[in-house]
């Protein structure tokens, strides 16, 4: 056990997938030619004024409701002042001391706040370095400028890089379920910074924290946080002190470099945005947001576990990819003979066959077909092994499992004579094993069962084969 324990909090930026930008009517885009989605407002031209996107407010409310936050009936936008070419007005409109949502909890991690703001433009540095210093010139693409963002800040409740990863996974699936964002880290619609500190195990005072920026994938988040925990642990272990600073994680070298220290911290000179009225949330707005919040992954997992009897691990596996959970529920709705647990056990089999990133709803296997297959196996009309072969065929060609079973002759050997004959042949073919079983060495029975299964191409029911072998050898 390390003498230190990590304390981690996350700041997550989520691009909302509204049709238009946070404060103007320009459409959101990704990958379009530069500077085609701009107007006087998002270019910060003289005289232009912001108008708050009502849809973005609704999305923020959905997020707040989903996280169990307290919604502020009246919140404020502030101006956060800084000079940089990605900020055309010279300030970002963001929420400061009175955010739209306060508090909340997700997956055991407390939420500090949720607030609305606007995204910056994208700078492209032309030249060798790829960064602003040393580049030949820099060009700005304002298409992204003004995209609505929600910033979610957690309390420092995470104790490891793995926990941070797991929380972010749950948050992402929750946001996806809410329909408010594409939550794609590659495209930047989900971005995560981490505040990391360590303290002596068992201590209740917080150590000096550093802020890690630019962890633009789940893997980098976990690696970056782990690297920073190691760095701080070594530093303190060697009698050093952690400096409050902002660090940049380079996923290629795995190195952390300092962007700025506390002394160099910006004074953003926040003040209330005079171009906007306070953001007043009415009962109607809340009701609309509430109506748009579906059952969320955490609650869904509990329901699968408690009402359907699915084990916790499988339930989480399903809800972390809501398309799996949706498929699962569609299969249950098909009213097959199999129970929820049996049906749920077939989902990983399906995923394995269609590819781990594919949505089963777009596969050739209809939910009803999977339910029917689970039913055939559960009622022992098809053996488990044969069922897997049927699934492979369903993935390749679609259709009805019963038809495939019929066509391929994969039904369980329920004809007692045929199976009995196969058992007799197996006993005759391996008299040693038969003798061992007869004299009580049950380990040897596996070889005999294997023979029967091979001969029947897996159509036999394993339990029935076992019963028949024992019966024959006892008599």
């Amino acid at each position: 056990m390390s003498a230190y324990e990590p304390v981690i909090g996350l700041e997550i930026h989520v691009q909302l997938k509204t049709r238009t930008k946070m404060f103007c009517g320009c459409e959101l885009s990704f990958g379009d030619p530069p500077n085609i989605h701009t107007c006087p407002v998002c270019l910060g031209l003289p005289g232009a004024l912001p108008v708050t996107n009502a849809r973005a407010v609704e999305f923020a409310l959905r997020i707040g409701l989903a996280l169990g936050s307290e919604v502020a009936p009246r919140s404020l936008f502030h101006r956060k002042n800084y000079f940089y070419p990605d900020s055309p007005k010279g300030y970002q409109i963001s929420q400061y001391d009175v955010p739209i949502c306060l508090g909340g909890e997700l997956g055991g991690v407390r939420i500090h706040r949720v607030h609305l703001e606007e995204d910056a433009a994208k700078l492209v540095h032309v030249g060798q370095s790829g960064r602003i210093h040393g580049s030949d010139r820099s060009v700005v693409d304002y298409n992204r400028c003004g995209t609505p963002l929600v910033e979610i800040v957690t309390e420092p409740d995470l104790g490891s890089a793995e926990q941070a990863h797991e929380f972010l996974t749950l948050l992402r699936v929750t946001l996806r379920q809410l329909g408010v964002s594409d939550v794609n880290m590659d495209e930047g619609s989900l971005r995560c910074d981490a505040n990391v500190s360590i303290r002596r195990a068992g201590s209740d005072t917080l150590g000096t924290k550093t802020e890690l920026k630019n962890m633009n994938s789940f893997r980098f988040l976990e690696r970056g946080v782990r690297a920073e925990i190691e760095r701080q642990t070594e530093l303190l272990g060697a009698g050093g002190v952690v400096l409050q600073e902002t660090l940049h994680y380079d996923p290629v070298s795995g190195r952390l470099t300092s962007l700025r220290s506390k002394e160099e911290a910006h004074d953003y000179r926040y003040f209330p945005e005079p171009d906007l009225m306070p953001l007043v949330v009415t009962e109607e707005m809340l009701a609309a947001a509430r109506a748009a919040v579906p059952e969320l992954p955490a609650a869904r997992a509990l329901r699968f576990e408690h009402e359907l009897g699915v084990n916790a691990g499988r339930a989480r596996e399903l809800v972390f990819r809501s398309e799996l959970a949706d498929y699962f529920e569609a299969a249950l709705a098909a009213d097959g003979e199999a129970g929820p647990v049996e049906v749920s056990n077939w989902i990983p089999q399906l995923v394995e066959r269609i590819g781990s990133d594919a949505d089963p709803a777009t596969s050739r296997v209809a939910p009803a077909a999977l339910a029917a297959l689970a039913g055939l196996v559960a009622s022992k009309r098809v053996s488990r092994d044969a069922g897997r072969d049927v699934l492979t065929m369903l993935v390749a060609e679609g259709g009805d499992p019963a038809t495939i079973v019929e066509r391929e002759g994969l039904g369980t050997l329920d004809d007692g004579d045929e199976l009995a004959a196969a058992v007799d042949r197996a006993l005759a073919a391996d008299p040693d094993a038969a003798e061992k079983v007869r004299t009580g060495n049950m380990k040897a029975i596996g070889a005999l069962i294997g023979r029967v299964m091979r001969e029947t191409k897996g159509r036999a029911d394993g339990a029935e084969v076992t019963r028949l072998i024992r019966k024959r050898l006892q008599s």
Partner: protein
Amino acid sequence: MSAWIELTAAEAVAKLRAREVGARELFEAYRERAAADDLNAYTWVADGAPDPIPGPDTRLAGLPLAVKDLFCTIGIPSQAGSKILKGYRPPYTATVVDKLLTAGATLLGKTNQDEFAMGSSTENSAFGPVLNPWDRRRVPGGSSGGSAAAVAAGIAPWAIGTDTGGSIRQPAALCGIVGLKPTYGACSRYGMIAFASSLDQAGPLTRDVTDAALLLSHMVGHDPRDSTSIAMPEPITVPTAEDLNGIRLGIPEELLGGGAEDGTGIEPGVRASFEAALKLAEGLGATVDTCRLPHAPHALSAYYLIAPAEASANLARYDGVRFGLRVAGDADLETMYGRTRGEGFGPEVKRRIMLGTYALSSGYYDAYYGAAQKVRTKIAEDFAAVFSEFHFVVTPTSPWTAFELGAKTDDPLAMYLNDFCTVPMPLAGIPAISIPSGLSDGLPVGFQLAGPAFSENRLLDAAYALERAIGFDAREARSA
């Protein structure tokens, strides 16, 4: 043609609508005069009448309009009196201008102003100072000095300007015309190059109160592009009141007397004109009494924290990246910012950016910006209390008449005192109008009435009745 030019705007609109004169003819007459402007009132004058020109069936029938430079006009220089915007032609038109053009106004020219509306004399323009048509050695007031001078000189039938701390009312007073600052939010600010967002309001500068009402009636209204704009509870109507029966006028002691020792005293000639106007008001049936605005003496201090603070952010966009001046050379980003802003902004603008940046800085916010906002709230409460007893608050608009060019340029604080009587109203968001009350040593004096939010119609009615009793006509007075 000069006979047509002698008409007030409302009269000219009537003649245009009656087809007694053609819009193109009238536009050309004004255009020639504006092009020959020797007051430096204009920074841009139209080459010719728009084609097609609004017809006699439109509400403003093609009557020309002068527009303060800081209103964005598509494809036409909109430079806010600043070198940093020299030659800037915006890709869109301000809502207020758009509404007026839609109503049938025609754009005659853009008028000179203090840079980014920061000033009280129009001497802070990058395009040179404007001269007061009453005395060319004197300033026209500011910041809407070009609009005021153009209307007073008859080289525009009427004009629009903006008022943040007095920038419509004070130049109107110093040029002997009418200027009205509406309730905050009555006119859209969309496309108005911002100085201080929570204070800026567009308004009319006109020869008389009727013109002000007519022009204002086409400016107001909620604009979906400005969330701080709000629909007037009733349309602006042309004033008709003939008396002030039952009207109670309050003279705030704090604005009239107390400041004398520290240099804010009202000039004797201004005081005499103000008192004469009050006598006329009483003659029309008004009762006049003193009232208290206990926090008004702090208004100027609060204003000079809030306005520069907002300006420091509003002016951050002039960074040489996307439009306007860029002074770069081989410089890196920060040097380019420094050079561009260093060369592009004038000294008063830099002073206010520094003041505002300081007032918002970490550790100083509460003491400066925060405290100023509290004062602002108190001032609004003071006015609310006064309006429970009085219909209007009245003061001289400016403590003095037009001063000589250069007289106050070396003393920013003396310049700021111009706004002593005009600053409390925008801080409270309430409307106020300045009308000429007569002359002092041959120079016009302004009389200010301020009313509760959205009291424009009543304010215009009272000003109209008083205007008739005063009987001042700028052009007659000057030709006399």
